[in-house]
Each structure stands twice: as C-alpha cells, then as structure tokens.
C-alpha cells in the first residue's frame, strides 16, 4: 500500500512537471526583433529537428535577417539572385575556430550546413558587404522571436526552473532565471 502511494506521488509529480506552460514578457531598450530562448537544461538533450529552414539571398539581402534554430538543425542556404553570392561566418558564439566559408554559388543553387554548436552566427556575403544576417543557434526547442514592440511568448515550456536569455543585434545579452509553473514571466531591458 505504501509502495503504491509513493508510485502515485511520483507519477503525479512527473505529470505536473511535464505540463506545457509559457514564458512571456517584453524586451525593451532596443528597437525591433529580439530573440529569447531557454538556455541549456542540465541533463537534458533534445533531438535535432528534421525540418531544414531556408536562409535565402534575394535582392542583395539575406532573408530572413534573423533566424533562430535549435542546435543540430541543418539550414539550407539558397541563392535566388541572378548574381553570385557567398556565405561565410567568422565565428559561432564568438568562437573564431568555428568560422566557416560555405563558398560561392549561382542562382537557384543551395548549400546546407548543420549547426551543432549553439551561439550566435553572424553571417556575411563577401561580395556584397552590405549583406548580413544572424542565425541564433539555441540549445533547446524553447525559443521565440519578439514582435517589433519587443513582446515575446515561448510556448510549450514544461514547468520548471530555467535560465532565459534575450539576444538582440548589437546589444549585450541578458539572462534571467525563470520559474515556469503554467506561466512564467521575464522582462528584459537590453542596452547596446
């Protein structure tokens, strides 16, 4: 009887902790889109998603300008312009050893790269210096991009305690502990 009671409590605990909640809030101090994500969770790994998002080069611009992907995601780089484009990055998360040049290819062709390391990847085309983009590689599937006003909402986050980080182009990152019990709140004020 006592053993059954313990089992029931454990099952209920597991049920409660696996409930999907949200983390929401506002990123202020900067204008435009920001990325907010849950940092690595100790002891937890997440399978890489099978979907391959596309970073397009069109009209002499990377599209989208900011892309968030989970660690392990393979990104397709497409050239939709009738001029040749190049894709390279000098670091991932500030680690210059992870810099890479994907090469140069003409219109209609694409190349792929799997991002196994989390961190921000500033992306360039060495033909058109005005072109830049950011791929934010995050360690968990819990992330969101804010709207232009800075409001964000990360959904399907299990209850628990996490560290949440906000990133914005050109601003200093900010991390905060957040406890999710159904809903969690975290506001950020970033500065450049």
């Amino acid at each position: 009887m006592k053993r059954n009671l313990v089992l029931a409590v454990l099952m209920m605990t597991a049920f409660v902790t696996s409930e999907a909640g949200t983390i929401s809030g506002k990123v202020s101090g900067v204008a435009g889109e920001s990325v907010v994500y849950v940092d690595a969770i100790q002891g937890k790994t997440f399978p890489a998603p099978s979907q391959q998002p596309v970073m397009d080069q069109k009209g002499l611009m990377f599209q989208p300008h900011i892309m968030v992907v989970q660690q392990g995601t393979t990104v397709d780089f497409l050239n939709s312009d009738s001029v040749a484009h190049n894709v390279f990055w000098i670091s991932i998360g500030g680690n210059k050893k992870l810099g890479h040049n994907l090469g140069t290819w003409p219109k209609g062709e694409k190349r792929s790269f799997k991002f196994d390391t989390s961190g921000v990847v500033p992306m360039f085309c060495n033909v058109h210096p005005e072109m830049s983009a950011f791929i934010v590689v995050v360690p968990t599937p819990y992330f969101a991009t804010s709207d232009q006003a800075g409001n964000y909402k990360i959904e399907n986050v299990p209850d628990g305690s996490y560290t949440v980080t906000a990133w914005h182009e050109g601003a200093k990152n900010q991390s905060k502990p957040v406890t999710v019990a159904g809903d969690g709140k975290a506001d950020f004020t970033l500065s450049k």
Partner: protein
Amino acid sequence: MLKRHQTRVMVFCQLLVALFASSHSYAIPAFSRQYGTSCSTCHIDFPKLNDFGKAFKDAGFKFPKDDETFIKIPPVMLGSQAQQELWPHTIWPGSIPGLPPIGLRFNQFFQVTSNNRNNFNSQLAPGTVGPFIPRTDFQPGFFSIFTAGNFGSGIAFWVDDDISVSGANANGGLGDAYLRFVNLSRFVKLPTDSLTLKVGQFELDLPFTQARSYDISPYDIYSQANIGAVNPLYPQQFVNNSFTLAGPGRGVELSGGHHYGGYRYAIAVVDQNTSGTPPTNYPNVPSATGGSSGGVGYFSDSNFKDLYGRLAYRFNLERDPASRHEVQAAGATGPRDHTYLTLGSYYFYGRSVQRAPGSLSNTSTPTIVLTAREPFYRLGGDFDFNYRKLDIYGLYMYGHDKDIVPFIPAGFTFPNGFISGSPATFSGGFIQADYLVYPWMMTIMRWDRVASTSDFLNGIGASASSPPPTPFFSPFSSVRNRFTPGVQILIHANIKASFEYQVRPKQVVYNPGTTVQLVSPFRTNTATAALEFVY
C-alpha cells in the same frame, strides 16, 4: 619685372592645376542608394571598376540580369508597360529613376615640393626678389556633381560637371554628358550587345580612362600636346596642336562587345578640338534669338571630323569554363575579377588647324588668311593583365603631326602658301601596377615616359616670362621619365585617402634665350596626399 614674376607663378600654378585637374574620378553613390548595395559591388578602389562594375556600365548602368529584382527604389514609370501595345499611337513608355540619381564629389590635396622648386629664380637679375613657391601647400580640388542612370528601353544617361575647380567656382566645366543607346543590335538582328550608340560629349573609349582615373596625377602621355619646335634657336615647325587624347570628344560613338570579356570595339566621329573658337561671345555667330552676332560660338572651327577607333580583346584565363564565361569568376572565397589578359590597339586621326596672315602678291599688309590643316594621328597598343590581387597594365602611344610650314617666296613679306616641313612626333606611354594589399588598401607603382624632341628644344633657353607649355619649363633631355609610387586607402567605401610621391623628370634652367645652363640638372619631386569623398 612684376609681370614676369606673375607669369612664372601663373605657369607654376597651371602646372599644379594640370597635375590635379586632369584627374577627375567618379563613383556613383546614386547607384548605391538605388540598389541598396555597397560601392564595392562595382568598385575595387573607387572609381576603379571590378568586372561586375564593368558589366553594369556596359549594360547601361543596370544589373546585367534581372535588374528590376535588385532595385530598392522603384523607378517612376513614364507610361505603363501595356502602352507599348498601343505604339505608334502613344509615346513609348520609359522610366526615370525613383530618386534623382545625383552624386557629389569633393577632394582636397596637400602637397610637399622639393627644395628645387625655386630654382627658376636663378634666371632673375641679382638682387631681384623672385616669387617664393611654398614647400608645403594645401591645394583645393574639385567639387563636382554627376548623375547617371537608365531611362528604360536600354537608354542610359550620364552628366558630370565640375562646379568648382581648385576652389574657383567659376572655373568649372561640363565633363561628360551623353545618352547611350545600349544594344541596338537587337533591332537589326546582330549578336547581343554588338552595337551601341553614344551621342553627346564623352571621353573616347580609351584603353584606360583618364576622366575616371583613380590616380592623383594624370597619365603624362594622355595630356601630351604636340607643339612643334618653336624655339628660335632651332629650325622651327608650324605644328601647334593642342589636342590631347584625354580631352573630351563631341560627337557620336558606335561600340560593341564587353569590357569584362571577349571583344570590344569603338568607332567615334568627333569634332576637332585642336583650335576651336572659344564658345563665348563670338561676334560672327548668329545668336539664338536671331541676331547676326552674339552667339555662343563653335567648339570646332572645321567641318572635318576627327576619327577614333579602338579594338581590343580580353582573354579570360580561368580554367573553369563556367567561370570563364560568367561576368565574374567565382571561387570558394566569392566572386572576383577573372584572371585575364587584354590586348588592344587604338588609332586617332584628325587635322590640326593653323592659320597665318598671307598675301598672294608682294604687299605691305596681309590680304588673305592662309589656313593649313595639318593631318595628325595617334596610334598605339595596350595591355592589361590581372592575376588575383595584382593588376599590371600599360599603354604605348606614337604621335605624328604633319608640319605644313608657311612659304614666303623671295621678295614677299608674307607667305602665299605652304610647304611641307619635318613632322613633329612624340612617343611614350606608361606602365602601372596595382596591388590590393587589403580590400581597403591598394598600392600603386607607375612609370610614365614621354619622348618629345620638340618639347626638349622648346625648353632650351626658355624664359620664365615666356615659358613653353606646361608641365615642364626646361626638360633635361627629350625623354621625360616619371616614377610614381602611391597608396590608396579606403577609410569607408566612399571616403578615400591617397598618397603619391612623384619622382619627376630632370630639368635645367637656362639663361633666357641662350643655351647656357645656370644650374645643375634637378628634379622637382612632389609628395601629394589627397582626401576625397563621394556621396
């Protein structure tokens, strides 16, 4: 004496102005705005074009393919595209750029001249205070306005004007202004881009542009006029041809091919610009309002039109056939200029007008004006070899002017005709090497050489109060060599700092009117720094 000093200062200033003023250069920030792209999309070190920039220019200031997909500021349509179906009952629809494609350029120089700069004072009488040319000097440059773009239907335009030259806002002038009808070959079923028409005032299709050069100092051979020996100490010639290859041509040009690969030809028919009547207040020119005089005059005083032709072929030497035939070669590190070798030749034919008072009989005053039209030509060859970051190019020119000398019969005071004399000739050229140390830093080394016997003779015994034409008072020999190392640094894509050190040809100073040298041969070397920006 004062006048003599003023003249000398003026000549020296002309030398400096010639040094700087000849070096127009333009990059087109309006295109950056229109396409939302950096200057470096088209330029290596503005205004030096890369292969894509050459293709952009060849296409009529458009992207060679899918231009409309790159334009960030849509053009204003002068009629809907559907109007084309109504033609000839409507005007063929064109377009104008969505923003006025106006660019501005400003530059400023700082110059250091060697200690020899005042050697010409040795011509002065003892105790006379001569002009003092400062060792260091700020030289105002240009403030220029320019506009270029495409009106649709493959019609490109260009206008540039110097609002201010050397700080004097009244001394500016029209640079180039033309319409260019690109790829007319499509109407006559010729290969694509094999026929393009340019109409207006423009720089001839020179192997290497002077009007849009990125060097501080101009190519000596391009500014070489052919003045025959007029020194009374030597047999004189009647050649006084102010034509220089760098001067603008007014007329039409047919051209075809591409600057970034394959063949390229140009044939131009232009006005003479050897001794044209100044275009202001010419008394015998009917005015625009119907008066018998007061018109603006003619730019040429002859019906004869000069002819210019150029033929070149560029061998793109990329191993990969796909890259070889693209606008730019592409590798892992990105698109880049091809490894290429261009070989070309050019020929210019014109007639230099010379007039002299004459008489058909022995009279005490002249009764007629004798006109000599001295045929002249310039011909030469050129090469351009580019390997990755190194670009070596050069040009050779030979100039020949027939000398038609006024003939004065025995017993006559004035000539009654002409006879042939010794032709006035010159030759020379330049070789330049550019090396791109970084994308923002280019080093330059150039060797200019001009061989002109008449320039040498004219300098012997010349007086500062009556000097031969610039750039040299008294060359030491008939061969003038100039070595010019330099470096150019892009502070931003549209701001550039340049530096040149010119090892200039040797000169000597003579006792005026004699062959007696007053000083040892010397060089007036100069170091010049320039700052310029376009926006």
